[in-house]
């Protein structure tokens, strides 16, 4: 992805103008959330709506924290996303290695099934899944969110593609010749070589788990919510104040946006590599 290709055209001022415009549209709603979070309904309805934030945002965040269990949600989201990420990276790397480097009967069929299931809508399984969780006594527990996402078909396929091309067969064979067992080969040859892809998978998985909404809203309650579920408590009550809803939304969104800004370059690279990796 790095380095310029010969013959790639330099952008003109018009290119910068247009790209700047796209950037503005991408970022403005987030900025305006800060503005909305610091003004009351009456102020927003004024003839000229405000364009700058004010310090009353601090009070509004405090009120939002009284209204909705946002801190509880943030901690729960950290636990859920962390567990899902750890599980996904470990199990998908293991399965991806088997599909990429070990020959076994039915491997192509199994991989094909794994890929085809990405077409299945989320709605297909929720009712029995909810019943299953209820029966296991897990409804309302974080593990009900963690367990079904512990590894994904996408993760298996992603790791398989990377390991197939990035880990030379010779290296694995040499380790076997030296008498290393399968697990030893996996841990000391495959995992170090697959580390860049594991990092990308970890970032994408964490982001997806953090932002997941559909299943958590069904299986969790506002008593023990993830951050996305805890937003639901903000709009309840008589005549909700948009400033408090916005302040709460902002409070729950800023942590992930900060992390995203810090790791942005890697995430951008990961998405682009995932798209082209053949």
């Amino acid at each position: 992805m790095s380095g310029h290709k010969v013959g790639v055209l330099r952008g003109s001022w018009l290119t910068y103008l247009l790209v700047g415009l796209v950037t503005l549209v991408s970022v403005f709603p987030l900025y305006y959330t800060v503005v909305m979070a610091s003004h009351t309904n009456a102020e927003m309805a004024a003839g000229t709506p405000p364009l700058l934030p004010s310090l009353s945002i601090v009070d509004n965040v405090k009120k939002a924290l009284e209204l909705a269990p946002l801190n509880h949600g943030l901690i729960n989201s950290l636990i859920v996303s962390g567990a899902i990420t750890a599980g996904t990276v470990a199990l998908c790397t293991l399965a991806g290695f088997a599909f990429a480097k070990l020959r076994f009967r039915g491997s192509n069929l199994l991989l094909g099934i794994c890929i085809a299931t990405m077409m299945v809508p989320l709605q297909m399984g929720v009712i029995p899944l909810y019943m299953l969780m209820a029966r296991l006594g897990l409804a309302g527990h974080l593990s009900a969110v963690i367990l079904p996402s512990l590894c994904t078909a996408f993760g298996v396929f992603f790791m398989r593609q990377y390991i197939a091309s990035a880990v030379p067969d010779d290296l694995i064979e040499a380790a076997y010749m030296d008498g290393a067992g399968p697990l030893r080969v996996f841990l000391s040859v495959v995992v170090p070589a697959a580390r860049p892809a594991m990092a990308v998978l970890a970032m994408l998985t964490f982001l997806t788990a953090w932002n997941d909404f559909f299943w958590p809203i069904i299986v969790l309650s506002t008593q023990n919510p993830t951050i996305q579920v805890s937003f639901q408590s903000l709009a309840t009550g008589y005549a909700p104040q948009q400033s408090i809803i916005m302040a709460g939304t902002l409070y729950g969104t800023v942590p992930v946006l900060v992390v995203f800004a810090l790791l942005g370059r890697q995430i951008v690279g990961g998405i682009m590599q995932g798209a082209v990796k053949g």
Partner: protein
Amino acid sequence: MTVASPSAVAAPPASTTRRAGHSHLPGRRIAYLYVLPFFVVFAAFSVYPWLATAWVSLHDTRLSTYHQSNWIGLENYHNLFTNKFFWNAFRNTITIGIISTVPQLCMALGIAHLLNYRLRGRTFFRVAILMPYATSLAAATVIFAELFDPKLGLVNWLLHAGHLPTVDWQGSKWPAQVAVSAIVTWRWTGYNALIYLAGMQAISADLYEAAAMDGAGRWRQFLHVTLPGLRPTILFTIVVSTIGAAQLFGEPLLYHNGLPDGGTQNQYQTLGLLMYQQGWTNDRLGLASATAWTMFLIIVLAVGLNLYLARRRVRRDGGHRRRMTLAAAAPEVSAR
């Protein structure tokens, strides 16, 4: 990681796995052990629920009588297909799907073209246009619901300031569908632009040079080099967006404050929302399961149609067919 092939998400590199010389790699049994955890999770929390949903869809099932419900055959499906709410949701899913994906993918293509120029601060621009993707669906919808608020929203203020009539973005059908689509478009345009950009960067510079030698200007280069080179990537994003649009749920739910009716007149109720309402609001789990399976069949038909049209087009153009998979699909599909 290197850019290995110009075809985005192309065929897996079968040659590396089928090559001879694997005799030293360990036996088959251990491989089954390695894929076992994945398939256990997959069987328990995906395959079993899917099949159970099919079973439930043939019963008159309520939450309280889940384990001893009456077999009613295809009656749920019959009720569904003769129900005006189903057809309303079906139409809404299609129209919102078109409004939310067609402009989105066209804009993503244009943005990718811009980002493909040599730019100062390109990492900054790429991260900035991906910020909406990092914003959760829940947060984005709450933010846009305020921006589109008929009284307090910035959108209507801008319209008013421009001496245009203000619009009821919640109550009227098409404006509400546009607003819901705007949320989807805002969140996913940057992501798809990066996918296209990756595809564009994998197109050989020689092709552009050859086109330039033939006297093709920038626009003709875009039409005759960039677009054909991107065809597999474009097809891939169309398939992924179709799958995402068919199961649209969170945006229309939260756009009406968490109510599953899709507006007071059901003006933006999608199939995903209808299924949620049938199951969790009306306690008609059998009917909801029938809706879920119907949605799956609709997705299979829609994806099949896309692939069929694309294949016919390629054959007509005399190009060679490329295999495609749903590689980068999952983050997008599962995040929706």
